[in-house]
Structures are given as C-alpha cells and as structure tokens.
C-alpha cells in the first residue's frame, strides 16, 4: 500500500496545491502576520511600524474604547439574535399551515433574504432619516415618538443601536424563516400525532415536540446569526458611521478597527490587535454556543 501512497502523493499534491496555495497565502500567512502586527504601533503618516511588545494586546483589551466597542457589540448581538430566532420561529409556525395562499405569505416572509447588508441598510436609512426620511413624514408617528425627527432614531445615542438592530433583524428574517421552515417540514408528523393522542395541547406539543426537533436548526441559525452580528460592519458604516458621537453608540469592535473617524486613526498595528482579539473572542463564543446547545442536539451520523 505504501507504493499506492507514494503514487497518490503526486496526484494529491497536484490536486491540493491550488487550494493550499491560496489558503496559505491569503488566510494562514495573514493570520500569523496579523498576530505579529498586533504588537506593533504603526504611523498612518510615515507608514513606519514599531514593535511595542506583547503587552499591547493587554493594553488594547483594557482600553476604554475597546471595552466600549465590546459592550456595543454584545448589546447588538443580544438585540438581534434572540429576537431574530424568535421571529423566525413564529413566522415559520404561522406559515406552516396548508391553507390557501400560504405560498404567497411564504414568499413574502422569505423575501428579505434577497437583500444584502448594503441594500437593507440603505432601505432603512431612507426610512429613518430625520429630515427627509419616510417615518418623519408620518405626522402621528412623529407626535408619538418625537425622537424620530429630533434628533432622529439613528442620531440619538439611546436609540441608534436599536434602530440598527431592527434593520439587521429585518434583513436576516428571510434566512431564519427558510431554515426553520425546512426544519419544521422535516419533523415527522407521527410525532405530533402521538403527542396529540397523549393529550398534549397545542402549546405542549410545541414545547415537547417542535422545539426539541428544531434544535439543530436553531443551533445552526444561532451560530450563524451570532457570528454575523459579531462581525457586523456594513450596517454601521451606512446607517450611523459609528456614531452618534461622542458616545460612539454604534461603534462595534469591527467598526472600531475598520471604520472612519475612530480613535485608531489608521494605525495598522492597533487594527491587527483588535482583529486578533475579536478572533479569540469569536473562538470562545463558538465553543460556548456549541457547548450550550450541543447537549440537546442530535446529529444523524
């Protein structure tokens, strides 16, 4: 068999080389370099980088700007993921009946899957803009919620993050809906029937049959949504520019690193530090999520 291994080695090398070359050059090498640059300070003006020691990671982690950004990011995740999952499940359950015209509603509920971050954010920007936006032109809404016009839902530090979160939840609704619907449809009907026979009412059937059987889908959706929320950038770039200042209410960790007008000031070293810290946090988070849901999930193979 070793001759086979040797023979295959040549072919394998040829087949793997393209992927390996690209992945090494544009994923692995940059990661290593980013870890190294994370302990450097670079001047945006002279483009000179100076090493300042591994303590820089700790300094950034303990800095007020990073911690603010982390708090904003966590808030954003908490605002979007549970709400998104909940709405996805509600919509999927509502649309799961074989009544006339349900196809139309299913299409409508899926429609937001066609929007990209930029498209969805601009649509919502148009809705929420305080001087020329849609909501400001609805008089009774403005009377009810004066913040819509003054200074604007995206300009008020208390509401900006929630407004951005609303836009994100809306954009992801189609995705969650499709997943949960597919999950619902894969639940064998006889499970429901036996529960019904056992005397379980609608709600009990939901909690004892539907939810557990949906758990792989919910886990998957939760991981994807959380991952996306943690890495969200476009929403803030287009809706708020990281503001409103000076509270920086929508400057998430990613925005702190890559956005314009943040305290980083074009320092590639600090950007790398933040990026690597984000990477580590995401790793831990994924492990936690899997652990949290993992016990209850059944996998086919």
């Amino acid at each position, binding site marked *: 068999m070793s001759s086979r291994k040797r023979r295959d080695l040549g072919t394998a090398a040829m087949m793997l080389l393209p992927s390996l070359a690209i992945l090494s050059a544009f994923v692995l090498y940059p990661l290593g370099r980013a870890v190294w640059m994370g302990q*450097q*300070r670079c*001047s*945006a*003006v*002279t*483009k*000179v980088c*100076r090493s*300042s*020691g591994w*303590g820089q990671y*700790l*300094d*950034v*982690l*303990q*800095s*007020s*700007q*990073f*911690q603010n950004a*982390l708090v904003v990011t966590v808030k954003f995740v908490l605002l979007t993921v549970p709400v998104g999952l909940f709405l996805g499940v509600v919509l999927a359950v509502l649309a799961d009946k074989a009544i006339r015209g349900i196809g139309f509603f299913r299409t409508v509920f899926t429609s937001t*899957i066609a929007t990209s971050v930029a498209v969805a954010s601009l649509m919502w920007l148009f809705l929420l803009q305080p001087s020329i936006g849609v909501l400001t032109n609805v008089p009774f809404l403005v009377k009810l919620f004066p913040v819509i016009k003054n*200074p604007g839902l995206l*300009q008020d530090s208390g509401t900006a993050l929630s407004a951005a979160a609303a836009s994100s939840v809306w954009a*992801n609704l*189609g995705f969650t809906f499709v997943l949960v619907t597919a999950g619902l449809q894969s639940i064998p009907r006889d499970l429901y029937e036996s529960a019904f026979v056992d005397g379980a009412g609608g709600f009990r059937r939901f909690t004892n049959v539907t939810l557990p059987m949906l758990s792989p889908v919910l*886990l*998957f959706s939760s*991981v*994807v949504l959380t*991952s*996306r929320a943690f*890495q969200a950038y476009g929403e803030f770039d287009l809706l708020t520019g990281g*503001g*409103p*200042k*000076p509270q920086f209410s929508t400057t998430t960790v990613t925005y702190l690193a890559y956005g*314009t*007008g943040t*305290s980083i*000031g*074009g320092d590639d*070293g*600090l950007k790398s*530090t933040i990026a690597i810290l984000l990477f*580590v*946090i995401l*790793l*831990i988070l*994924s*492990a*936690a*999520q*899997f*652990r949290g849901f*993992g*016990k209850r999930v059944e*996998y086919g193979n």
Partner: protein
Amino acid sequence: MNPTPHARFVAARRGTGHRRLVLLAGSMALVAAACSSGSKSITDAGNKDTKAPIATTAAATTAAATGTTATPSSGATTGTPATTATPGTAAATTPAPTVAPSTTTSTPLANLPKCDTTALAASTGTVDITYWDALGSTQLQGSLKKLTDLYNSSQAKVHVTIQEQNAYETAIDGYLQANQDGRPDILMTPEYAFTQIKDTKSVVPIDACATSSKFDKSLYVPATLAEYAAGGVLWSMPFNVSNPVLYYNRKAFTAAGLDPNKPPATLEELQADSKKIVEARASTYGVAFDTGFDSGGGWYTEQWFAKSGDFYADNQNGRSAPATKVNIDDATGVGLMTYLQSMVSSKLAVNVGANDSGQDTLLKMADKTQPAAMSINTSAGLAQVLTILKAGTFPGLTVDDIGIGPMPGPAAQPGVNVGGASLWIVDHKNDAKAAAAWDYIQFLTNAQSQSTWAADTGYVPSRKDSTELDPLKTTYANDPRFAVAFDQLLATPNIPSSAGPALGPQREVRKLVATAMAAILGGADPQTSLTDAAKQSDALIAQYSQQVGG
C-alpha cells in the same frame, strides 16, 4: 445570507472534553484580563513612555544642523524655543512683521522635493494628471467640474481627471492608506489635516513650484497662505476658503430695539444684545452655540484664540517647529469657556449639541417654537441658506431677514484664520506631472477662477483682485452679505497667532476640546475640564512626534 464557513465548522464538530476546558480557561483569562482598568485609552496601547516628547528636540537640533523645516529663513518667521540650536533668532514673544514664508532664500527648500516648472513646456503630448477632490456636495462638485472642464478645453498640455472622494475624511484616510503608486497627482485636504499630510514627506511643496515659476504670492490674502505654511515653507495652496461669521435675525433685532445694521462685534456686545433680545421676547434665545468639533467646539475655539492674539499651541502654533503642547487651558481658554458657560446657564444662549449635520445652529434660528436670534456658522453655508430660505422652507424667515456680521471675538480685534481646504502636489518623482499639477492649481487659484468659484459657492476668494472681477464683483455689489467673510479675512493681522494651530493630531485635539466644551456647557468647571483636555492633547501630540520624528 451565506452561512459563514466559520459557523458551519462549528456546527459540524462534536463536543469533546477538550472543548469544555478551552472554553473555561479562555473565557476566564479574557475576563480577568479585561477586568483591570477600563480607563486606559487605546491610543496609549503599547507605548511605554508617552510623556516624554522624545523626537521633537532631537529633530529640531538635527534639523537646525541640516537646515530643513525647523530652520527659519532669514527675514521670515522668528522666535523658536530655547531648546533648538537654531542660530540667531529673536525672542519668542516678539511677533514678526510677517509670517508669510519668504520667497527669497532657498534654505528651507534645499532638502525638499524640487519642482521644475519648465518640464511642462518641455514635455511632448498631453500630461494626464488625477485629482482627488474631497468636496462633499453635488453642488460644489458641479462648480468644480465647470472650472476643470474650462481648464481642460482651454489648453492641450494638461488633462485633469477628477476622482471624487465625497468627504474630507475619505480623502485623508484614503491618501494615508495608499502607497505612493496608488496616490493621485493632486490631493485636496481640509486645513486640519495640514500637518499630517506635510509629515508624510510625499508631496512637493508649493513653494518649490512657486519659486521655480517666479509666482507672485503677494496677490493672495496673507491669512490664506499663512494657514498652509510651516517652517518658512508654503506647503499647499488654499483653494476653497471659508471662515466663521455671525448669522443674525434682523427682524428679532428690530423687535428688540437694536440696530439691525450693527451686529455685535465682541463677546460682550454679543451678551448685551442677547440680553436685550431675550428680555424683549424678540426670540427665545439670543444666540445658539454648538459643541461640534468642526464647528463650535473645535474650530471656533481655534478662531477665538487667534482673535485674542494668543497661541493655541507652542512653537508658534506648531509652525516654526513641531508643537509639543497646547495652551488651551490658559487664561484665554478658561475665560472663553467661562463666558460660554454663563451665557448658556443664564439662558441667553442655547447649546444645540454636537452638530453632526453641521447646520444645527442655523436650524435653531428657524425653529418655530424656541428660536435663537443669532448663530455662528461658516461663511461657506451662506449661499445654501439663502437658497433654502428663498424656497420658503421656513415660513416666517425670509431671505432679507438674515444679516451677516463678522465673527464676534474676545476683544475688538478683527481677523480669523481660514477654514476650507487646500491643494497638494504629490511627489511622483515626475517633473512633468508636478509642473502640470502646478499649472492646474495656478488656474484654480487665479483671480478669475476664484471669482467664479466664490460667486457660485459662497466660499471666499483667496485672491484680493478677485473681488474686482465678475461674477464676484456683481455678487458682492448685489448682496454685501457675501463680502463680510472676505472683509473679515482681509482685516486679519499678519501675526503668527492668526495662522491657527498646525498639529499632527489636530482633529483629535479638536474632539477633546469639543468634549470639554460640552461638559462645561453642562456645568463642569472650565479650568479642570480644559486642563484635562490639554493633558490628553499633549499626550497625543507627544505620541505623534514619536511616531513621525522617530
């Protein structure tokens, strides 16, 4: 909607005991690390010693030895601090007769990139150059395009292609991020980015081209050139010039028994007039202030220091040598902030906040329920304001109701430093391109172009003779309000403090001052807030010097 590969990976793995350990250890470590102080600034990360301004003195001494930027040329700027070894200069406090860079000596230019303007005539064919324009509105971009098309069609030697960056920040960030090959031939940046761009050492100073082509700088308003000069060298050419003026409601003035043709010229008069207006109920508030860093909080503070004849930062506002500290917490600064605080607390003035839109103070004047009678705003907004009023957007306020006066200051001292942006020639080691860029810049800043530009936009011309040419001549004659900003500029005394600060982290310092002002207007103690802001600013400046000088 594409499930990130990351997510798929996680969902595909099974849990193991290892994972539990990793999770626990990792999160505990992270939380423990993060939970120590949360009051450090990210800009201090990695720096072990942020206090000592290491490079400045060293750079100054070496600069003095080799005769580069820190050396004042004879007959021009004087007064360098005692730490430099520069020979034969007067005491730091005597203002020199002129701060305009000398055109005669070449000592400061000796070690800077050269500009051979004969290279354009010598070149065959058309020289194509790119220009990164940073103007933000479609209207302004249109006016610029008109001028550029005129230039392109009027000669065949140079062809300019405009690449709109759509915002000052985008232009600055884009330029800094790019490598030299990715940079344009001409760059526009706002005045607060002056020091940063100069320190990239990637540009050809305007003075080099001016000297080579025997350009007459005396045709320009000195204040405009002073803004973009440092170390005796003019680095970039002012193009769109603005300064703050007082917008006031003439109707409210009349109603309060004040002469609508005599707006307040000093801060005392501003207070007195506001009192009369509020007491006569001609308006809810006398004046609207804001704490935005490109307006009320940052930019106007710099203006008020200039008006007081006081230096905002040391080393002659960072122009004779790189600044090492700011003076914002001195008597001038504290006096100013105390004044603003008392105006707001006595309800003679209102604070409209961070002014993200740039127009909040103006909008306050048009507010239906609680208006203010006056506000300070950039002169560049006048044309737009009149257009909006003409369209009837704000009933109750007509075009004739708006009066324009010079910006009120601490004393009766006139003068402002300029805002707006300037044009840089990027050094691509190509004489023909540099010469072509200089040709285009000369066109944009000649008397006729500045007249057209100013009349179209409401910016102020940088050339004195532009006001004698149409269309600006007619505009000023028909509506003298447009001329106020220009007259104010002309009246600026030619002393070093008028030029305004040139700091590396200027934008960040403005933000710190703006934050301090916001706190002060909310009731905080002026001295403490300003000293705090000054300390943080000094740290940023020190860091900048370290990075740039070292």
